[in-house]
């Protein structure tokens, strides 16, 4: 009986054959629908910062280095590959790739930096900013920026009503000078 059982086991294991994958020596593509590292298409990106505002792990940073250039930095190290950035992107500039062999010994290897050229306003010469409705919205947008202090210095200050005090304080806008009466 004991021997018969052993023979049965042998037959079962013989039937299945070798199941071990020769993985690191043979490529093994990920199945369809696998969400790997997001890939940015820099020709489509408009720099709207939607991905940066909606990233749950805050891995996407935005930085305005000068008047025309905005830099988008994606740090993949704490990314959870949830795909919200790809869902949200209005221009479909982000696609979730199927690349999963991301192991590395230094963290800057898994970053992506994109230099975005921002259109400037014809009148004031500044970048188009995000739509800021009230001070709460303003706090929201500035809070997720990489350099919120610097941006706060440059960003416009809005008030609900016209206030001449703020107008006097603010000299950031290059308005056409008033005609002398």
């Amino acid at each position, binding site marked *: 009986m004991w021997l018969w059982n052993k023979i049965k086991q042998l037959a079962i294991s013989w039937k299945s054959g070798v199941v071990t994958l020769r993985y690191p020596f043979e490529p093994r593509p990920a199945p369809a629908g696998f969400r790997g590292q997001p890939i940015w298409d*820099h020709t489509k990106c408009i720099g709207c910062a939607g991905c940066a505002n909606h990233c*749950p792990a805050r891995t996407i940073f935005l930085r305005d280095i000068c008047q025309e250039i905005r830099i988008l930095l994606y740090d993949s190290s*704490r990314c*959870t590959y949830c795909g919200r950035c790809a869902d949200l992107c209005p221009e479909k500039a982000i696609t979730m790739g199927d690349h*999963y062999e991301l192991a590395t010994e230094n*963290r800057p*290897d898994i970053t*992506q930096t994109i230099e975005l050229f921002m259109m400037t306003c014809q009148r004031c010469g500044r970048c188009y900013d995000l739509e800021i409705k009230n001070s709460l919205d303003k706090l929201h947008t500035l809070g997720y920026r990489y350099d919120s202090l610097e941006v706060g210095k440059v960003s416009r200050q809005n008030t609900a009503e016209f206030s001449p005090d703020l107008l006097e304080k603010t000299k950031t806008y290059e308005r056409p000078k008033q005609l002398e009466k």
Partner: protein
Amino acid sequence: MWKKLTEKAFWRSIWVYHCNSGACNGCDIEILNVLTPYYDVERFGIRLVGSPRQADAILLSGAVTRPTLPLVKKAYQAVPAPRLVFAVGSCAIGGGCWYDTYNVTGGGEKAIPVNYFIPGCPPRPEAIIYGIALALGLVDKKVAPVELKQMEFPVDMYRHRKLFEANNVIYKLLGEEDDRLNFGRK
């Protein structure tokens, strides 16, 4: 240099100790999956051991939470000297979604020195095998930092700004400072 040292120090089989520091069990299941006959890692001589004293490497999973921080440090100290630490999953690398939570240290790197990072949430078993094979020198690294540009400027904007700042020093000394750096506010 590190690779050469690894090849010298770990030319025999490496035994790993699986250290869970508050993970959601996603990474742990994938690590267990690596040990199954389907992805048989004992071909490379990798074995899971129960005690850090017998281990050569630590597979750290989970964002290091505050209660587990001293335990993780103790486990790291218990591993004998030429040791490797693999941070498995996005929590162990940078803290994941909980990188700035009150009860989380924010990744394994803030608790113990980490040698290899295996991103993924959770990483595929192949990705874990790939990370360990990378440490053993069996495969080549496949990632590099990506830099994309929408437009190439004829004048380098960074250099332009730096030059402007350098030139402005003279005007500062003369007392005719240019307002453009301060955006009109003083």
